[in-house]
Structures are given as structure tokens and as C-alpha cells.
């Protein structure tokens, strides 16, 4: 059975480098993808995922195992850092995302999916969190609620509304792709 994240964290606090390497290997890819989906920007995603782990290893790290899982804490950190990083670059995360602003766009095969990616990033932040966490990162409603810090019911209703908005965007895109792409 795998060692839990929390146990790895305890070992990290005692200076165990192997534990840090294991936790990093286990959680970094998903955290990076999460930041990438939120920001659409590879540089931001890399910096944010790194910074989340950097904060975790500091002597004054704020993680408290009594308040929730380490995984939720890391996702929450990445979420906040992504917002800060985006603001620092002078682009509100819910601002207009353009087609050429990140590696995600280059990876996406298909105009409709590309338009959806932009539509996701242009959702109101609460809706975007719900879609990225639940539908793109496939986290449970409970996990997503812990990351965002809201009740499970709120995540469900936000996801429901977000999907309605996205479905409407897709439908509109199919009718008039050139108007919706940006």
C-alpha cells in the first residue's frame, strides 16, 4: 500500500528527501495540469507548481493535517498562486483568453475543443474551478469543495450552471465559429 501524502509530509518535515521526491512524483503532474488548465500558460503552470512545493517545504509551511488532506491543500495553493501569477502578468484570469496564449492551445487538436478551452478560461472563477476540478481533473465533488472551500452542493450547482454556459457556447460556436473563437 502506498504511503499516504500526509505521512510523506511528516517525513519531509524531518528532512527526508526521498519522501519529497516521492510526493513530487505523485502529485506534481496533476498540479501542473491543473494550473495549466486554469491559466492556459505553460510558464505560469510550471512556476506555480514549483512554488506550491516550495511553500510546502518551508519551515513555516501552513499545512495542517487536521484541517484537510495534503492533496486538497496543494490544489488550493495552486489555485491561489495561479490567480496571483495571472494578475501579476496584468491579465485577469477571467479576462479574455486568446487563441495563442499558451501551450494548451498548441496541444489541442480541433477547433471546437480549442474554442471550449478558451470558453472554460473565460468562465466566472467559481464556475471555472468547478469545471476544471470536476470535469478536467476528474476530482470528486467532495475534493473540489475542499479545494475551493465551499459546500459540496455549491460545487454541484456551479458545475451544472457552468456546463449549461459551455454547452451554449459550443452550440453558438458551431453556428458562427469566427465570432465565438475569441
Amino acid at each position, binding site marked *: 500500500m502506498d504511503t499516504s501524502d500526509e505521512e510523506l509530509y511528516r517525513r519531509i518535515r524531518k528532512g527526508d528527501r526521498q519522501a519529497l521526491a516521492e510526493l513530487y512524483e505523485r502529485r*506534481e503532474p496533476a498540479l501542473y495540469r491543473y494550473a495549466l488548465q486554469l491559466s492556459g500558460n505553460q510558464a505560469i503552470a510550471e512556476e506555480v507548481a*514549483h512554488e506550491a512545493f516550495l511553500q510546502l*517545504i518551508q519551515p513555516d509551511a501552513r499545512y495542517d493535517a487536521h484541517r484537510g488532506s495534503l492533496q486538497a491543500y496543494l490544489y488550493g495553493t495552486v489555485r491561489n498562486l495561479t490567480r496571483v501569477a495571472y494578475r501579476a502578468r496584468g491579465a485577469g484570469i477571467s479576462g479574455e483568453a486568446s487563441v495563442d496564449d499558451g501551450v494548451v492551445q498548441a496541444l*489541442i487538436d480541433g477547433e471546437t*475543443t480549442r474554442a471550449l478551452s478558451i470558453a472554460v478560461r473565460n468562465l466566472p472563477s467559481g464556475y471555472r474551478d468547478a469545471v476544471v476540478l470536476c*470535469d478536467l481533473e476528474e476530482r470528486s465533488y467532495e475534493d473540489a469543495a475542499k479545494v475551493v472551500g465551499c459546500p459540496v452542493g455549491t460545487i454541484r450547482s456551479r458545475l451544472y450552471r457552468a456546463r449549461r454556459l459551455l454547452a451554449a457556447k459550443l452550440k453558438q460556436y458551431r453556428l458562427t465559429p469566427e465570432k465565438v473563437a475569441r
Partner: protein
Amino acid sequence: MSTKDCRQWQDELVERARRGAGPSRSLRAHVSECARCEEQWEAERTLNEELRKLRMASEGQRSGDVWRRRLMAEFAGLELSSSRPLLRWAWIPASAALLVAASVQIWLGMPARDVPAKVAAQSEGVASAVSFGTGEDSGFIPVPYALPLATGESVRVVRRELNGAELVRMGIDLPGAFAADLADDFEADVMLGEDDLPRAVQLVSYPEL
């Protein structure tokens, strides 16, 4: 006959579409009678397919290995600095011992034993540190990706027991001859900047040399 209203059916069809499941018999019956729900069912299925493609696009993506190595180097630096309180007052007995040793050597008229030049010149930073060499040329190996020392920044050197794996985590590549001994401990002088992060490492002893 179902008593659900369209809102309740839509909750169900969203969940079914998210799971990639087909409609239940009762949902299919409702959708065949309700144009609005039928339209939403199709929209949700299409959306789900596009979300799946979006998910696949970033699957397998992760930060480059350089970020992992940077993190491990930072962690190594934090570990070294955490031992600082113990060393805070160590300079007093060390200086006293050095003074006594120097006095004795002068008194005996013996030539002073060579102090490793790179350690003695620690305040000069690592810009001139030599590469992994042998004999007289051996010296400090710069830690890759470490911030360069600022002009006038003082450094200090602490002696530590390290092993090859720790060096690799700091981003220092060992020559092939040493790579096989990754698990062996050896002594090393670690040069720390004012921020207590390692800037360079000098291997002092190897078990098999």
C-alpha cells in the same frame, strides 16, 4: 409514470453525460417526449466529448525535470541552513583552536600546511570555481541553477557528509567513475551564500579513492 419535472431530469442527464453513460429507460422515455430535455441531452453529450478531448490534450504533461532538480536543491539548502543554530557559536572554539595551532606552528618554525585555496578564497564567490578535477586543481563545483552571488556577498563553508544521490539532487552530475558509488558517503565542503542556499560543493574525501 414518473413524477420528476424537467429540472430533475436535467440533473440526471448531466450526471449521466458526465459519466459517459447512456440514458436510463425512464430518461429515454422522457427525452423522447420532451424536446427541451432531448436538446440538452445532446448538448451535454457533445460537451462531454469535447471536455474529454481537452483533458486528453494535457494528459501526460508535467513540468520539466529542471524544476524537480531545483526543488531538491532548495530542499537541500533548507536542510543545511536548519543546522545553522548549532554552528552559530562554533566559530569561537574553532577560531581559538586555529589560533593555537597557528601559534604552535610559528613557534616550531614549521611551514604552515596548505589551506585549500578555494576555501580560503571563499569571499570571492564561485565564479572562478574549477570543475571536478584531480590533484592540485580540485575545487568547488558550482551548483547549477543557483542564483549567482552578488558583488560583495559573503559566503561561508560548512563541512557535511553527503552522498552521490544528494549531489545529483542538487543538480551536480558526477563523472562516470563516481556515479557507481551513489550510495557511499563522503565528506564535502558546501559553500553557502548569505541566503544559506548552496552555491558550490567541494568534495573532500571519497571512500574508494
